[in-house]
């Protein structure tokens, strides 16, 4: 039996032109919609049902969260630039923007840590009331998603120093990008549902 090394692997036959990893990511995101949908649904069901304070209007800080939301949205913009740079084989730019995505994501996470610790100081904990329970679970799950995204971007960045990367690897950045944009979009929903609606 001849064992051709896989480096010379030929292209595989596929019935559609959608690459497997990309299709997989779309399906995962569809499923993730249901995860966040359930969490957001739980938040809405329990909205205004906390028996004791602090209530959302007491603790939510719209200006600060607006800034952190803006940072997260801008990270999506950098994601697009990073993918474009990799597709055009502009590796220094690709590294710069990829680092930017991870950095902006980290800034967002920093805001979240600050927000959480402020809330706890003001008496809102997981166990305090239904708002605390649902708020921390929902935004915490989102924060974990962002953390995974940051780690993913940093891993891609480090990989680009370990082995040469070119436009042939764009698919893998694109898949990570799908994930990153999705996490962003979820934040827009969360920002609206938890923060903005409270002050309408």
């Amino acid at each position, binding site marked *: 039996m001849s064992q051709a090394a896989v480096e010379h692997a030929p*292209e595989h036959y596929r*019935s559609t032109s959608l690459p497997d990893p990309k299709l997989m990511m779309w399906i995962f995101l569809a*499923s993730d919609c249901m995860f966040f949908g359930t969490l957001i649904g739980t938040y809405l069901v*329990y909205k205004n*049902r906390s028996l004791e304070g602090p209530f959302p209007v007491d603790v939510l800080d719209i200006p600060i969260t607006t800034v952190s939301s803006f940072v997260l949205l801008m990270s999506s913009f950098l994601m697009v630039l990073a993918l474009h740079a990799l597709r055009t084989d502009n590796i220094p730019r690709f590294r710069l923007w990829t680092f930017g995505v991870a950095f902006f994501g980290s800034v967002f996470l920093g805001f979240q840590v600050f927000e959480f610790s402020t809330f706890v100081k003001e008496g809102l904990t997981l166990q305090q009331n239904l708002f605390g*329970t649902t708020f921390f679970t929902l935004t915490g799950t989102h924060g974990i998603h962002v953390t995974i995204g940051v780690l993913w971007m940093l891993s891609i960045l480090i990989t680009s120093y370990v082995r040469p990367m070119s436009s*042939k690897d764009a698919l893998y950045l694109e898949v990570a990008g799908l994930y990153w944009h999705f996490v962003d979009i979820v934040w827009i929903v969360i920002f609206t549902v938890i923060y903005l609606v409270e002050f309408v």
Partner: protein
Amino acid sequence: MAVGRQPARPVSEVKLLARPTWTRGLLSWLTTVDHKRLGILYILASFFFMGLASIEAFLIRLQLTRPGLSIVSPDVYNQLFTMHGVTMVFLAIMPLGIGFANYFMPLMIGARDLAFPRLNAFGFWVYFLGAILLYTSFFFGGAPDVGWFAYSPLTSLSNNPGTGTDYYMVGLFIGGIGTLVTGMNFIVTIINMRAPGMTLMRMPVFVWMILVTAFLIVFAFPPLTIALFQVIMDRSFGTLFYEPAGGGMAILWQHLFWIFGHPEVYIIVLPAFGAISEIIPTFSRKPLFGYPIVILSGIFIGFMGFAVWTHHMFTTGLGPVVNTAFALTTFVIGVPTGLKVFNWMATIWGGRVQFTTAMLFAISFLVTFTIGGITGIMLAMPPFDALVQDSYFVVAHFHYAMGGGALLSFLAATYYWFPKMTGKMLSETLGKWVFWLVAGGFYLIFFPQHFNGLAGMPRRIQTYPEGLGFEFWNVISTIGTFVMAVGILLLLYSVILAFARGEPAGNDPWDGRTLEWSISSPPPYYNFDEMPVVNDRDAFWAQKYPESVHAKPVEEEFEEHGIHIPGQSWYPVIMAGALFIGGYALIYNNWWLGILMFAVIVIGSYGWAFEGIGGHHIHPEEKEA
């Protein structure tokens, strides 16, 4: 190659663990990524857990034989019916469908393997170890005893301080991850890995039903996973999701559970529909009647499966408008199901029917499932449901739907596909005995429960007083378990006999219609010598009887590049093992162990990613060398 140019995946030299290469022995099974081996593992594990669930059911039936018995205590009885339900739904019947799909779906579409072979292995090990975790609860302070749907606030820490509930939540949480990734894997495989010419409307119905099932898994498991997660949070971190004292509402659990729970019924039964749609045409010597209708009904059932969950909650007081709406959607979902039954009957009609054991089971499925469907329509009426809610009528109904719908058809599938999987025939003479004992036993057990339910016997009771008129039918029901048990043991004997001195099956013992029959039995590890080209529905019949093909032959161009055999890997089983041990950390709030296992998972993910799919290529002409 015309369609779907895809670059080969880059390979990295970074390796934490040497890539395993065993081809036989225990280690080869632990590290396998072959869909056929994993399919066999799924099927064996399913039958193992089905055995455990049957023992539990047996004890339940013994306890209920006569009024006032105390063979098991009420406490143990609660654990038995909980674990029987959980096991049958999550650990036995659903994975059995996934197992058959794992083995036969790639063969039916002419693929080498699933799209993500290592993920498939991970899915199996996570399911299996999650199930084992759930069962170890028997040794550590008692199994879950809150019913298979674990209604809140029964599950709160104050009402249920033991660890049984934690085992339920964590076990299903972990097992659910396995099912989810496998569902995603199936979708990518079916969309992307069909052989040239295998258009969507030429796919075998089994593959179609697996596709619908996979979508149901992808959308239905997240609500359950989150609900389980919320209870874990309540019990481990003191959150208030289901704490009435803090304003939490028990009804939310019911909604989340049944938003998952009703699609779960179809996750279990659609693969069974698919298998039946393969077996009935094969043994009727006719193509399936109304192929597009069967497919579209399956898709419609998939959609409607998400729109009927509240019929499980008619008596919770949601009001007449909600009840009416969900009664209507439930009636509607009966229509595509009925259409399928008529299509199967029309397939048999006018065919040259061969009454093999598989066909007998398939026909018994038609009858049994129809009865379960009719009682289902009865229960869909809120006034009637209010009368028989939580009675043995409901028990009889869902055993007719699940046991009759899924179990009988999977037994049909076992008789149909066993020759392909092992290369040996199961004895048809013994098979007839198995059929009559199992199907007869099934009717003896569950038909009387309709009467007991209408007479008012509640479910989940450990015993009942004399003189309420439940005695006679309970005795019959218990006798039925013995009959069915003999049938199942005979099936086991028949399997052993087949391995010992079964007739060789040959490639195509049933004159099959689908591609899996075109290769040897058992199939070679690389599946197909050459990529099959599909010219019509019932692809293998089209190859064998070209005069029956009316479609234009495929002119798509593709080049043979040899067959890619993905490399084995340690990571799936390591990651699953870390989740398994991490599950105990979550149950006993042992955070150091939890952090350790989390670290293993993080490192394992990197190992997995950098290991790459690997493997090697073989070429058809060199395979024998």
